């Protein structure tokens, strides 16, 4: 008889070594970030703060009424949780399968171990970890708040139950195509809406029981198909990223953990598979590829600038104009740094570049961002409508053009390691910025936009990007 190897032994062997490796990396990162003396003082400070809040003073007593109210509303809160937790799991299914089945488990399955058992062990591990976290939180809550044990246990039990009964639905939903996933998610939201409407008519307990029964039925239906139509590559890809994304290490090494994307939006369209017919298509595609990779930073940058503009609506008018000049300058600087970064990414790094062509196509995308930022600015201009308004608008755009061109040109020179002599252009850009900043106080400065327009027209016959 052939002796079966122990899965548990191998499973824990991987876990122990994963833990050791992560601990070693975190230790190295923390040694780099903190020195021992600071850490000791920091721990003492935190301990003192904690003690002063909860032990020496009577912080919990201050919120006693609130906790009593919360406990009285327990049934309603649990009811809300009952409808929120399944939707939360479905929402998570857009990004993660819920079972940390990484490439390590995948490779373990290539050895003589049943895949189903490995998968279940991984799931069990997740449930136990969650239970431990909930228990810790419950312990702290029990220690520091006047909440009763039964109330806290009900909460923990609800969370644990939904972790268990939503595991398979989330796993299967993750595998679905985006459109199907979205449809099912919206359906769930609609059902939750209906359940909420029924709340005054039916007992919350009854609705909750119905909902849980439905989920259990879904589980029973899905259980035999738990390993059919599984995109293992996608599952292991996201789980490897989740396991090895270590924020402390990323902070210490100043690197960003990126999820490797083997499948992109472009591959969903058969149109994108056709050969290019013009050079413009190639440049535009290259920029699109880059922007999609940098989308998080782009959204953050644009979002920050929008917040800046929103804040400017609440300051004196003259300050608004200084603000938009700053915003415009920051926007152009960020955009130009993206332009430069393009050439140190992927295969483009090793190819010869036409910095002019890359800049021309990049300018079109830059204009799009500038137009987005201009919408609230335009709104402001119309709120303070005057005879000068058309010139204010013209000054905004001529300044944008002048500064953008000179900054792009400087960057292009730096990329090609050429010495740049653009003193005249830089001076014009600076003057334009000053005029834009002060145009809120001295409206006549907007007349400079006509001079800038003339200069841009003259330059169009002899572009600086040649």
């Amino acid at each position: 008889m052939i002796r079966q190897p122990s899965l548990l032994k191998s499973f824990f062997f991987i876990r122990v070594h994963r833990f050791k490796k992560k601990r070693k990396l975190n230790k190295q990162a923390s040694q780099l970030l903190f020195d021992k003396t600071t850490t000791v003082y920091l721990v003492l400070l935190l301990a003192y703060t904690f003690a002063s809040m909860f032990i020496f003073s009577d912080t919990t007593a201050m919120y006693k009424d609130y906790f009593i109210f919360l406990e009285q509303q327990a049934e309603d809160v649990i009811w809300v949780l009952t409808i929120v937790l399944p939707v939360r799991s479905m929402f998570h299914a857009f990004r993660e399968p819920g079972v940390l089945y990484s490439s390590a488990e995948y490779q373990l399955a290539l050895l003589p171990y049943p895949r189903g058992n490995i998968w279940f062990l991984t799931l069990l591990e997740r449930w136990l970890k969650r239970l431990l976290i909930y228990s810790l939180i419950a312990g702290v809550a029990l220690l520091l708040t006047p909440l009763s044990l039964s109330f806290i246990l009900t909460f923990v039990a609800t969370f644990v139950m939904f972790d268990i009964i939503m595991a398979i639905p989330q796993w299967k939903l993750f595998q679905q195509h985006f459109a199907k996933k979205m449809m099912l998610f919206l359906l769930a939201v609609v059902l939750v809406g209906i359940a909420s409407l029924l709340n005054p008519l039916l007992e919350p307990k009854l609705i909750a029981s119905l909902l849980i029964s439905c989920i259990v039925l879904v589980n029973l239906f899905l259980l035999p198909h738990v390993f059919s139509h599984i995109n293992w590559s996608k599952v292991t890809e996201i789980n490897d990223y989740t396991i090895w994304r270590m924020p402390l290490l990323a902070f210490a090494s100043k690197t960003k953990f990126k999820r490797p994307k083997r499948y992109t939006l472009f591959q969903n369209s058969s149109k994108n598979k056709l050969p290019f017919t013009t050079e413009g298509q190639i440049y535009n595609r290259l920029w699109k590829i880059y922007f999609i990779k940098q989308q998080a930073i782009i959204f953050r940058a644009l979002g920050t600038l929008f917040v800046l503009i929103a804040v400017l609506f609440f300051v004196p008018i003259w300050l608004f104009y200084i603000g938009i000049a700053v915003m415009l300058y920051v926007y152009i600087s960020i955009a130009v740094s993206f332009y430069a970064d393009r050439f140190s990414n992927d295969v483009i790094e090793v190819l010869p570049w036409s910095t002019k062509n890359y800049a021309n196509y990049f300018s079109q995308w830059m204009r799009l961002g500038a137009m987005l930022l201009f919408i609230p600015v335009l709104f402001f201009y119309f709120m303070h409508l005057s005879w000068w308004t058309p010139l204010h608008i013209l000054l905004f755009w001529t300044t944008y053009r002048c500064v953008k061109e000179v900054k792009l040109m400087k960057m292009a020179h730096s990329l090609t390691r050429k010495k740049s002599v653009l003193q005249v252009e830089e001076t014009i850009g600076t003057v334009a910025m000053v005029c834009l900043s002060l145009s809120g106080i001295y409206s006549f400065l907007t007349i400079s936009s006509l001079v800038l327009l003339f200069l841009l027209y003259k330059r169009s016959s002899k572009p600086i990007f040649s």
Partner: protein
Amino acid sequence: MKTLEVVELSVEIDQNLLIDHASFTLEEGTITALVGHNGAGKSTLLKAIVGMLSKSQGKIIFNETYHQDEDFLTCKLLLAYLPEEPMLLTELTVMQHFQLYGMSYELAKNEMNQRIEEMVKGFELSDKLNEYPESLSKGMRQKVQTICALLPDTPLLLIDEPFMGLDIYAIDYFEQLMKEKVAKGTTILVTTHQLDRMKGMADNYIMLQQGKIHSQGPIDQFVTIDRRMDE
């Protein structure tokens, strides 16, 4: 004519000297094998010539005229680089990669299409033109990257481990293409561990040991690679 002249080149990363005062020249229409143990600095040297890595010291001169520090873009146009690992974009199909290379090296459309047709046939990729890299095997991806690098007629061709992952038919075809390139005047600098194969093709060799040029000369004087550490 000297297609490439490397003078006292040093490359340093995080205070580690990866290339240490390397000097050599490559004559027009020759093949030079860059050999050495693992970690000797072969790929680093190629990357510094391409401009992917900044040098801390030295000069890199192309066609006896163009200095990398002063004419960076012109220098890039004068070389094609075939990396060890394919650098293909997930978002572009095989054909779109060829078009990207064609555009970057300003190849005429007809000429480019003719070369693509020939090489795609030679590397047996005719049915894969509209496929994304993920649907190709590792060897096929290497073939795509090889065609990309061979599309332009540059004076200098840098090849990092040319035969990795290729089947014997593809290797034979690749060798034939390299010989055709050399006959047209292209200079090739190639790193490889397949010494027997290169001995039959290369004119010269450069041996690196821990970032330093240990020896160089005609290939028939080459004996074997030294170990990583001197015993």
